[in-house]
């Protein structure tokens, strides 16, 4: 006997599985496990800082409170280079247990986020042609979403 719950935005007995909004059972052969990822942590932070020229510089790190590498999505807004603090973008991201590798945002400034089993990091690396004073004099807001999902290791 299987117990669980199913809901749908139409007749529950007629819709396809992918039209259901909850299916907590394993009754559909396509479903091996059903988990709704959810955010249970959020953070906004505005900083003014100066990274080392040409170097990866840890600007912000936040403990996320979990003992695993969670799935996360970082967002940012900036008034740098004509941007607006009211306009957010999804930032490129990686997960890593090692010192964070860079991801290229532009050729002039490399902005990226990483997560390990302890912290979420937002970092900047200065590139060619980037006016350092622009970073110092600009505002940045970072926000991230952590979902109750283990990004894990390939062996787990």
């Amino acid at each position, binding site marked *: 006997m299987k117990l*669980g*719950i199913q*809901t*749908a*935005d139409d007749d529950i007995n007629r819709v396809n*599985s*992918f039209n*259901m*909004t*909850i299916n*907590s059972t394993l009754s559909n052969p*396509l*479903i*091996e*496990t*059903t*988990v*709704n*990822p*959810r*955010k*249970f942590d*959020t953070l*906004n932070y505005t900083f003014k800082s100066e990274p080392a020229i040409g170097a990866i510089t840890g600007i912000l790190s936040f403990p996320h409170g979990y003992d695993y590498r969670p*799935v996360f*999505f970082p*967002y940012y*807004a900036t008034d740098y280079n004509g941007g*607006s603090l*009211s*306009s*957010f*973008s*999804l*930032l*490129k*991201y*990686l*997960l*890593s*247990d*090692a010192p964070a*590798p*860079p*991801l*290229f*945002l*532009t*050729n002039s400034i490399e902005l990226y986020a990483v997560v390990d089993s302890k912290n979420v990091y937002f970092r900047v690396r200065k590139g060619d042609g980037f006016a350092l004073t622009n970073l110092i004099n600009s505002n940045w*807001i970072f*926000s991230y*979403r952590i979902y*109750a*999902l*283990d*990004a*894990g290791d*390939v*062996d*787990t």
Partner: protein
Amino acid sequence: MSIGIKMSQPGYNVKTSPDDKMAFSSEWQTLRIIKEVPFRIPASSVATTIFFHDLGYAPLYWPIIDKPGDSNLALIYPDGTAHVQNSDDLDIVVDEHTIRYITTSPSGGEVTGRVILFENPLVQNYEAPIDLRGSGDAIDTSNYGVRFVNNGSIDSTDKRDFAIDSTSRTPLVHRIKNGTTDSTKQIIINHDLGQLPAFFVYAKLSGADYWQFVTNATDAFISSTDTDTTVQLFATCEYVVWVLKEPVNKV
């Protein structure tokens, strides 16, 4: 006749709660995971199939990538060139049957990570109603709620064990917009949420048979405000934009 389930976050009246204080509504699409696929791509690998999902449609997915050293998640054409060339471009892509690793630089180092594969078809158009306009003020602090266990015990304190838990917000889909664009067009999606929503963008470049996850970079400008989500991909491609109801700049 409208029958369904609505569930608000603790302390909020389910009949008047604004969308972002809802934990769940059966009127709205949710993201349902069918598979989590860990992968390890050996160093110097060329394009590689990671997993055969055989759903028959391209599914929504989240690529979580661990790659030491300089790298770039880029829009990559089928011939192995990137839309905007960098030193070491790579990505995880999906089609109707597979999840694949593609790269412009087969000499790159080992890439590991995990793909979160959802049951939801990636390519669709969808509009959820905004029917719950309230003050958002908490009205009650009583300790009660609803949770649906997926694995383990109902008493677990690990959120990963639950399909729904009213103490946590569930990602609820607000808009899905599919269309085509080119190097000059700017796509503006009026989401009308009155708050900055989480969003995800995918693109299928001209000539490609796969979809890629796109973030803001030199080859794509993607941003959202309280009213609009704006996307410019600078390439001839098909796109799909997922806008969730959850805000990114407040708890």
